[in-house]
C-alpha cells in the first residue's frame, strides 16, 4: 500500500473497509479463478482443438506443426512466419487478442486490429497447443496484473523511462523506428497485453524476461502507464501527445491565423 493510496482513502475507517473488501475479493478470486494457461488447467481436448484451429488458420505461415514456414519465392528464401516452438502461450494470447495474428496483410509489421475474429476459448486452446511445442512464457498470474491494488506508479515510471520511453515516447504516444516500423501508442492497451508484450517482445520490441524486469517491475510499469493515461490532459487539448511538434503546428496554423485575423479585422476599423 503506498502513501498516496493511503491519503486518497482518507477517513481511516473507509480505508480499512475497502482494504478488507479488497483482501476478501482478492482471496476469493485467487481461490476460485482458474489459473489461465497454467499447464495444469489445460485439458487434452483443449490442446487437440487448438491444434486443429492452428492448422486451419495459422499453418500456412507457421507450418503445420508450428515449425515455421520458409519457402523459395522467385529465387530467394522467404519466411512466411517464424517457428513458434518456445513462443509460449503468452505470445499467442498477445498476438491474437490484439488482433495481430492471424496476420491479415503482411507489411513492415503486424498491426493491432480492433476486431478479433476468434472466441476467447479458441484463443486459449491455440495457446495451449503452442505451449506444448516447447517451454515458453505462460500467461501472467493475476497477482502481477493488479496494478490498482499493489502497483507503484512512481517506481514504474522510472523503469518505464529507462526501458520503454525511447521507443514508445514518454507520453506513451508511440514513436517511429527505422524503415517504416513503429512502436505503437500504449493508450488503452489492456494491462495483460502490456505485461505479455514485455514478456514476449513482439517483433522489434526487445524481450524483457523476468530477470530483466521482475514481475513486480512489470506490474509497476503497468501501473505507471495506466495512471498516466488516467490523468489525461489536465492542460486542455492534448494535441496527440506529440509534444513540441504538435504545439508548433498549432501555433503556426491556429495561433498565427487568429492573430492575423484579428489584425486584419482591427485594420478595417477606421477612425
Amino acid at each position: 500500500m503506498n502513501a498516496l493510496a493511503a491519503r486518497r482513502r482518507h477517513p481511516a475507517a473507509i480505508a480499512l473497509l475497502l482494504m478488507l473488501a479488497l483482501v476478501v475479493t482478492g482471496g476469493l478470486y485467487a481461490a476460485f479463478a482458474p489459473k489461465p494457461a497454467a499447464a495444469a488447467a489445460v485439458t487434452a481436448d483443449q490442446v487437440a482443438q487448438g491444434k486443429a484451429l492452428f492448422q486451419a488458420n495459422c499453418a500456412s505461415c507457421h507450418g503445420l506443426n508450428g515449425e515455421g514456414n520458409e519457402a523459395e519465392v522467385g529465387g530467394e528464401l522467404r519466411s512466411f512466419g517464424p517457428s513458434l516452438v518456445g513462443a509460449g502461450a503468452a505470445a499467442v494470447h498477445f498476438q491474437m487478442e490484439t488482433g495481430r495474428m492471424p496476420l491479415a496483410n503482411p507489411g513492415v509489421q503486424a498491426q493491432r486490429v480492433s476486431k478479433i475474429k476468434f472466441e476467447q476459448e479458441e484463443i486459449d486452446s491455440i495457446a495451449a497447443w503452442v505451449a506444448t511445442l516447447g517451454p515458453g512464457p505462460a500467461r501472467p498470474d493475476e497477482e502481477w496484473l493488479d496494478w490498482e491494488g499493489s502497483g507503484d506508479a512512481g517506481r514504474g515510471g522510472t523503469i518505464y523511462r529507462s526501458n520503454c520511453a525511447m521507443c514508445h515516447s514518454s507520453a506513451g504516444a508511440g514513436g517511429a523506428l527505422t524503415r517504416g516500423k513503429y512502436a505503437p501508442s500504449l493508450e488503452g492497451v489492456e494491462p495483460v497485453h502490456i505485461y505479455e508484450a514485455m514478456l514476449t517482445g513482439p517483433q522489434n520490441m526487445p524481450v524483457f524476461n523476468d530477470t530483466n524486469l521482475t514481475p513486480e517491475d512489470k506490474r509497476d510499469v503497468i501501473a505507471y502507464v495506466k495512471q498516466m493515461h488516467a490523468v489525461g490532459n489536465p492542460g486542455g487539448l492534448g494535441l496527440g501527445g506529440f509534444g513540441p511538434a504538435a504545439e508548433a503546428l498549432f501555433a503556426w496554423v491556429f495561433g498565427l491565423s487568429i492573430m492575423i485575423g484579428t489584425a486584419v479585422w482591427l485594420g478595417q476599423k477606421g477612425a
Partner: protein
Amino acid sequence: MSETTASRPAAALRADDKPIERAPQGAVGKLGGVAGWVDDRTRAAKGVNYLLRKVFPDHWSFMLGEIAMYSLIVCLLTGAFLTFWFVPSMGQTVYDGSYIPLQGVVMSEAYASTLDISFDIKGGLLIRQIHHWAALMFIVSLSVHMMRVFFTGAFRKPRELNWVIGTVLALLAIVEGFAGYSLPDDLLSGTGLRAMQGFILTVPVIGSYIAYALFGGDFPGEMIIPRLYAAHVLLIPAILVGLFIVHVTMVAVNKHTQYPGPGKTNDNVVGYRVMPVYAAKAGGFFFLVFGLTALIAAFAQINAIWVHGPYDPSAVTAGAQPDWYMWFSDGALRLLPGWIEFTVFGFTFSPNIAIGSIILLPLVYTVLGAYPFVERWITGDDREHHLLDRPRNAPTRTGVGMAAITGYTVLALACVNDIIAIKLGMSINDLTRFFRVAVFLLPILVFWITKRICLGLQRHDRELVLHGRETGTVIRTPEGRFFERHEDLDPYTRWRLVSFDTYRPIELEPATDANGLVRKGARKDRLRAALSRFYFTDQIHPVTPAELAAAHHDGHGHEALEGAAEEEYPEQIGADR
C-alpha cells in the same frame, strides 16, 4: 558605374498635387493642472506631443511587429508570476504533490516546483501555459514580421540598422526560449541541454573547457539550471526589452514605411495620428493578443512536463523535439552523415555535429543581418526608401527570400522526421534521404517558381495599366470585327501599379585599364556585376506615361506594345531613369 532611378516616371502624374498637410511639431502651449505640474518638472510635454502627433500608416501587416511586442509583454507578465514559485535548483527532493504517477520519485527541486505550479498552485497551470504559448507566438510573430519587412524591402536605407537590431532580437529570442525550455529539468529539457552541451563540445580544442565552465563541471552538474535561470529571467529579458525599445524608437524616428498608393510618397506618411485612433487601436490590440493567447492556453495543453518525468541522463524518449525555433539546427544534425568525424593528434573533430550547430546557428543570423548591406552593394542604391515594394516588383529578392524560407523549413521538418514518419506511415529512412536532397534542390526550385510567379503578376499589372479592365462587353465594329471593350483603370489604382523602382544591371568596366594594367578590385566588381545581372536582368519595368499615352492613342490595335515590357531596356525607359 551604376545608376539608379532619380525620379519615378509616374511622378509626373502628381505634378499638380496639393501641398501635403504635415503634423505640426514643436510649439506646445502652456499646460495647466497636473499636466502642467509634471511638465514644469520633466519638460515631457514636447516629447509626448511629438509622439502623440506622429502618424502611423494602417495595414494589418504592420501589426505583426506589434503582435511580437505584445507577446513579449505577455511573457514578461506571466513570467513574473512563475518566478514566485519556481525553484531554480538542481538539489534533490522526493515528490509528494498531487500528480499521482510521480509520487515518491526522486527529482530536482526545479522539476518538483514546476509540477507544483502545474498541479498545486491555483491558476498555475494556466499561467504556465499562457507563458509558453506566448513565447511560441512571440517567435512565430517576430518571424512573420521579419518576412514582412524582408519581402516589402522595408530594410532598405535608412532602416538597415533597425533590421540588424531586429536580427539580434530574433537571435536573443531563441536563446531566451531555449533557456526557458531548459528550466523545468524534465526529460525533454534535459535532453535539449545534453544536446547543447554536445554542440559546445564540438568547438575544436577548447570545447570541453567551455562546456566545463558553463556547466560548472561535468554534465549535468548542479550549476546549469541556476545559471540558465539568471539568464532567462534577468539578463536576456533586460537586453530584449532594451533592444526592442530602441527598435520601436527607431521606427518612430525613421517614420514607418507605407505601401505605395495614391497620395503616398517617399516624403510623407499617410495614416492615423497616434492620438486618439492609433493609440486606441494599439491598446485594444494588446488586450486582444493577451486575451487570445490566454484563450489558447485555456484550451490547448503545452509542454506537459509531467508526462516526460524528471531528467535522468540514462533515459531518453522517442519524439524528443525542442521548441520549433531550434528545429532547423536539430534537423541539420539529423541530416548530416555521421561519418564526417575524424581524429587528429588525439583530438576528435566532429563536423557532423558542428556544421549543424555551432556553425549553422551563427551563420543563419549573420546572413540575415547582412542582407540589407549586400543588396545595397548590389544595387548601389543610396537613396532613402519610405515606400515599400510590393513583393512582385522585386522578383529576385522575393525569390531569394522564398528559397531561404524553404531551406529553413526543410531543415526544420527534418527535425520532426520521426513524427512525420509515424503520422504519415512512412519510413524514416526514406524521409531522411528525401530531406537530404530537398535541402539543396527545393530552394532552387522554389526560387525559380516564385520568380516566375512574380514576373507573371508584373506582366498582368502592366497589361491592366495599358489596356484597362476587361468589361465583358463585346463590341462589333461596322466592318464586322469583334473586340472586347476595356475599361481604363482609375488613376488611384493605376498609381499603385506603376510606382516602383527598377534597376539597370551594372555594366562591367574592363578588368584592365587603358595601360593594360589590372584594375584594383576587378574581381570584386565582377562578382557585383554578376549578382546585379542575377537580380535585375529580366526585370519588368513599370509603364511609363509615354507608353500609357501610346496605348491610349492606339486604341485597341496595340498588340505591338505588349512585347515592350519583356524587351531589354527600351530606349525611352533607360533615358528616363
